[in-house]
């Protein structure tokens, strides 16, 4: 039959773009490479950059929705000054000159009197190298980024144990591993690399085990899912250790060569050095050499160190290899599978089987790469042999108050199996590994905070004993967040979650200005959100705000904007320079270092400025030493790009490692290159330096790698980095708790320090859970990252918000039925701290004692330029209201932060709740707050979005019919 009309002629090859610019995505912290296609100056399409080391061409949902972020009606348009009461959200637009002058006025007064009255905290930003340096130039110790509420447990446990960490600083050997154990990961920062890796791993037929109370996302594609009870992974892992020890399935050679397992631990009960490492006169750790039958420096090559026994030290005390202490501890029946099955909810048989599978993969399926390499002692090895068991863990471990120890337990398991930076195992990404811990101490001791002067060092670092703490004479904290105090000695990332509460309470002291950059502190990054809003707006007896000034630098009409006196509107990520630096959170992979930039691919259409430019400008106007020349003129008049190119941390080392040296031929170190940024832009906005094949594994003990790392400025010396099964710094704190040393904890904290500063991993019930009546609040309540939404900032995105416009509370079907809760019905979620109303969704794949929801979907009405009746606020809810920022009072009335006792990591996931069906015909979530007004200058969003209509290819004329 002839066609009755000519078929349409589809233009199958329309022109896509006039121009393609390559930059770095910032719809999340994964930092994938993107190609931005522009037509007539407008963004037509974003796609993954196939050449980019992070994402190799793929792009996630958020990344693909970048255009809608860039065009969001919630974008701020001009600096704002508060005119109403704080929290009301009433503002007037002001000029930039005025805005900067105001900030300089407030900050200048602080700096002249008491610099620590500035609390400068940053959230999801990637400019911590700049902001931290700026804070120390200002002279305040009160600076940190979001790590304290995020995953410092992972960072600290990793860095103190193996000199590197999970998070985004290491990765499984996706190509070669035969068994991957993943603990508590829903999405993570390595969003795309993990997904690319998982598919590779599955294609290779390796086994993927996901330990997670919830079976969604990655856990859904796991070959085996272990629906563990929240907060009990430490026990589960130590039971695996128990099993491996029972069977003798440990890699003794790895332990001897690469860990401190043979180091002798001083046994001198009650003595001032009990539990420390026995050292020789040069400070080198001692071990017992079985060959020479005498004590030896444990750092010497070619010795045969004992892993067990008890040896007389020169001073007469006795020393025992750390490994023996470890074995004795984990051989205890309390770690037997049968003993932990009840608590963890994992059947003993499963634990035994996983132990057997782990051992089988590690010891029977070794992988070998025919690649000679040279170890730290100069010995050549013909090949690289590894035990192909890899592990990865994140916030399911981290966000519990026992997370530091749990994470250490996982690293311990890795070491026992000999699977750290070996083929098939966990791999460091340069610039890691670093010494465990790195020799960098936090600045801000009482004498180091001087009006009008910078601090002698960065505000964050790694204490290795009580002497490094930032405490006053009486043991009280120096910092507003109490990081590096006895409350949280290893708080390597600060404790942003405690800042509003501490500042409000004036505990340890009142501050003047809270300066927040890219953190939504009045909403989803606050615990106890409703109270936090109160704290930010509360007044003292004199009628002034208890936190006198709040400045925020935000790009969008977030909930935080309403709580600010001065709003500095930022650009979007496609409109500015950014830097993803090796000094900060680089984009390296295990096979090589890499860093990246963002550059403006389009110009802003509103009166906004990149925050980094503004910060540098403010710093110069304040006359901060590093920011002005000797004549007082700005050192970086070109703003952030000028700083990126010309600032040197130490001579030769700057923000970017690529194309250094005046002619751009140097890498890692070298003089500033005036054309450095041009080189980056040409190269696709990233620089990478593949490691030579002989450097790719055993980095902690690989001579060529270590030398390379020194040359690149990543580490100070090419010494072997010895993995710390047994943590001596922990023991130093413990000894202080027992009364030894110069810097002692206040009496009320001694027991706590003694208990939690165990040099070997321990497990204990998470604090908030332990403080809650388990019968009255029988359920664990968790959140998970949705893959298609980034914290609070995706809801203003027209596309992403269509995927997650509201959230439900998920609960196991059987549990719900037992509670008389029907699918889709409304319930009150009650914690000892508060009540939230939500709609439930029944599911199968969830631990029976657990309920959960997607994180940060619930929004405050009116925020983010959404209508007041948007589902995000009408039906969405925020679990944070139920999570207190402090634990219930101790007997002496003292209240600890709801945090890990070692690192201060916020314990979001220790929450316990009960559910009560809502009987009043509820149809909306609660609590609800007054809608926030739209900031001035923001137009009402349109009711129809026809994005892309203008790009539609012209239809060829149809032949006449």
């Amino acid at each position, binding site marked *: 039959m002839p066609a009755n009309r000519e078929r349409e002629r589809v233009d199958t090859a329309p022109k896509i773009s006039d121009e393609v610019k390559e930059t770095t995505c910032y719809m999340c912290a994964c930092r994938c490479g993107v190609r931005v296609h522009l037509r007539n100056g407008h963004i037509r399409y974003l796609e993954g950059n196939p050449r980019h080391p992070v994402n190799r061409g793929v792009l996630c*949902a958020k990344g*693909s929705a970048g255009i809608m972020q860039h065009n969001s009606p919630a974008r701020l348009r001009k600096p704002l000054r508060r005119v109403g009461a704080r929290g009301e959200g009433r503002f007037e637009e002001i000029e930039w000159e005025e805005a900067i002058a105001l900030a300089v006025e407030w900050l200048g007064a602080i700096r002249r009197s008491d610099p620590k009255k500035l609390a400068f905290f940053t959230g999801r930003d990637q400019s911590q190298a700049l902001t931290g340096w700026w804070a120390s130039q200002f002279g305040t110790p009160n600076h940190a980024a979001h790590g304290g509420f995020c995953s410092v447990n992972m960072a600290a446990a990793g860095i103190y144990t193996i000199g590197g960490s999970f998070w985004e600083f290491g990765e499984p050997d996706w190509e070669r591993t035969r068994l991957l154990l993943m603990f508590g990961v829903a999405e993570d920062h390595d*969003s795309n690399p993990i997904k690319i890796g998982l598919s590779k791993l599955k294609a290779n037929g390796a086994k993927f085990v996901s330990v997670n109370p919830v079976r969604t996302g990655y856990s859904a594609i796991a070959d085996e899912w272990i629906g563990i009870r929240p907060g009990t992974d430490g026990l589960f892992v130590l039971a695996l250790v128990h*099993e491996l020890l029972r069977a003798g399935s440990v890699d003794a050679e790895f332990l001897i060569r690469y860990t401190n397992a043979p180091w002798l631990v001083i046994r001198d009960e009650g003595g001032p050095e009990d539990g420390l490492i026995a050292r020789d006169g040069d400070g080198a750790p001692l071990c017992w050499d079985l060959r020479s039958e005498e004590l030896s420096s444990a750092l010497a090559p070619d010795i045969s160190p004992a892993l067990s026994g008890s040896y007389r030290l020169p001073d007469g005390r006795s020393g025992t290899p750390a490994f023996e202490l470890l074995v004795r501890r984990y051989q205890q029946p309390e770690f037997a599978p049968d003993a932990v099955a009840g608590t963890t909810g994992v059947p003993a048989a499963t634990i035994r089987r996983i132990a057997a599978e782990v051992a089988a993969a590690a010891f029977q399926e070794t992988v070998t790469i025919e690649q000679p390499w040279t170890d730290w002692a100069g010995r050549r090895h013909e090949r690289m042999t590894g035990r192909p068991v890899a592990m990865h863990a994140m916030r399911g471990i981290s966000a519990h108050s026992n997370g530091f120890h749990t994470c250490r337990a996982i690293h311990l398991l890795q070491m026992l199996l000999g699977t750290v930076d070996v083929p098939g195992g966990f791999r460091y990404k340069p610039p890691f590994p670093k010494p465990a811990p790195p020799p960098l101490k936090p600045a801000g001791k009482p004498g180091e905070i001087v009006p009008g002067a910078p601090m002698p060092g960065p505000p964050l670092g790694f204490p290795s004993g009580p002497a490094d703490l930032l405490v006053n004479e009486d043991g009280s904290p120096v910092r507003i967040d109490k990081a590096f105090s006895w409350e949280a000695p290893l708080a390597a990332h600060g404790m942003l979650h405690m800042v509003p509460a501490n500042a409000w309470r004036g505990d340890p002291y009142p501050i003047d200005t809270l300066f927040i950059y890219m953190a939504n502190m009045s909403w989803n990054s606050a615990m106890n959100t409703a109270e936090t809003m109160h704290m930010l707006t509360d007044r003292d007896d004199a009628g002034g705000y208890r936190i006198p000034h709040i400045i925020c630098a935000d790009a969008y009409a977030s909930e935080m904007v309403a709580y600010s006196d001065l709003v500095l509107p930022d650009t979007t990520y496609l409109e500015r320079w950014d830097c993803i630096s090796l000094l900060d959170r680089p984009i390296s992979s295990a096979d090589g270092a890499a860093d990246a930039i963002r550059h403006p691919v389009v110009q802003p259409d509103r009166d906004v400025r990149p925050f980094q430019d503004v910060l540098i400008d403010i710093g110069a106007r304040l006359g901060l030493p590093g920011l002005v020349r000797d004549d007082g003129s700005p050192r970086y008049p070109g703003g952030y790009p000028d700083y990126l190119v010309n600032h040197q941390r130490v001579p030769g080392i700057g923000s970017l490692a690529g194309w250094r040296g005046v002619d751009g031929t140097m890498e890692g170190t070298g003089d500033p290159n005036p054309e450095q940024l041009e080189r980056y832009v040409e190269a696709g906005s990233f620089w990478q330096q593949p490691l030579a094949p002989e450097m790719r594994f055993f980095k902690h003990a690989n001579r060529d790698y270590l030398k390379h790392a020194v040359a690149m400025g990543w580490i100070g010396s090419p010494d072997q980095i010895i993995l710390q099964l047994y943590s001596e710094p922990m023991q130093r704190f413990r000894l202080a708790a027992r009364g030894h040393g110069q810097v002692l904890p206040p009496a009320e904290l001694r027991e706590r320090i003694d208990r939690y500063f165990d040099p070997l991993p321990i497990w204990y019930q998470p604090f908030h859970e332990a403080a809650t009546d388990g019968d009255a609040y029988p359920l664990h309540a968790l959140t998970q990252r949705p893959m298609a939404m980034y914290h609070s900032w995706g809801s203003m995105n027209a596309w992403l*918000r269509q995927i997650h416009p509201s959230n439900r509370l998920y609960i196991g079907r059987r549990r719900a039925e037992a509670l008389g809760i029907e699918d889709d019905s409304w319930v009150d979620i009650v914690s000892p701290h508060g009540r939230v109303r939500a709609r439930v969704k029944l599911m199968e794949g969830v631990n029976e004692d657990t309920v959960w929801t997607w994180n940060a979907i619930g929004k405050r009405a009116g925020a983010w330029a959404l209508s007041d009746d*948007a589902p995000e606020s009408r039906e969405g809810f925020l679990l944070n209201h139920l999570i207190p920022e402090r634990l219930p009072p101790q007997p002496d009335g003292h209240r600890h932060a709801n945090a890990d006792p070692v690192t201060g990591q916020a314990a979001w996931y220790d929450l316990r709740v009960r559910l009560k069906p809502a009987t009043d015909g509820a149809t909306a979530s609660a609590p609800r707050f007054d809608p926030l007004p739209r900031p001035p200058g923001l137009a009402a969003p349109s009711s129809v979005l026809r994005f892309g209509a203008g790009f539609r290819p012209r239809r060829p004329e149809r032949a006449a019919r």
Partner: protein
Amino acid sequence: MTSLPRDPGPKKLGLVIDLDTCVGCHACAVSCKEWNTGGVAAPLTDLDPYGADPVGVWFNRVHAYEAGDGMGGRTVHFPRSCLHCDEPACVSVCPTGASYKREEDGIVLVDEDLCIGCKLCSWACPYGAREYDRDAGVMKKCTLCIDRIYNENLPEPERVPACVTACPTSARHFGDLGDPDSPISRLVAERGGRDLMPELGYRPVNKYLPPRPTRGGTDPAEGGADPLRPEPESDGGRFLRWLDATLSR
């Protein structure tokens, strides 16, 4: 045109979706939206985008299912778009000829200039693959990225649908399912690719690869392992001494 092609060519372009690796990230759905909202079917209009009930046109949507009861079941993420059926009633019901199936490659398209917006084709599609653009008054659907796969302005390897390039887990495959020897057809054969609702007789071109069985058993063949045998020397110090076979550092 509404009549199905009389002599369909041998070529049947389509997608194969691997439910074993799909993690439900929605990347394919959003990249589809992004590409197509500026492509031949532009725009993929969004109504009330910042309001109480945002509803936009999407060609690809990702569901999540649970199969089986309790802890023993599976969670399966499930992207759903047009399957470019061999017997697409969506085409034959169309009164205007706007819906058609191309004989050269089997792609099912809507000619928007002919569409009267009667929605009947969306009723006829069992898979919910057609989305009506209320603003434009016409039906829209997955084009199999016809403006990418033949687009000479793109380098050869990039001539695949947007959803396929974006997918971070490589769970989406594109190719000629009419050719039994194409890599994609072989993949379907190897993994037992399935039709959705075969009972309706639409003979979808797109196939779904079922999730592989889990491996929780003790069978070593399935990746399980023999139970660990306790080291006879393993109690206390004797174990330690056993380890202390003089290994050197």
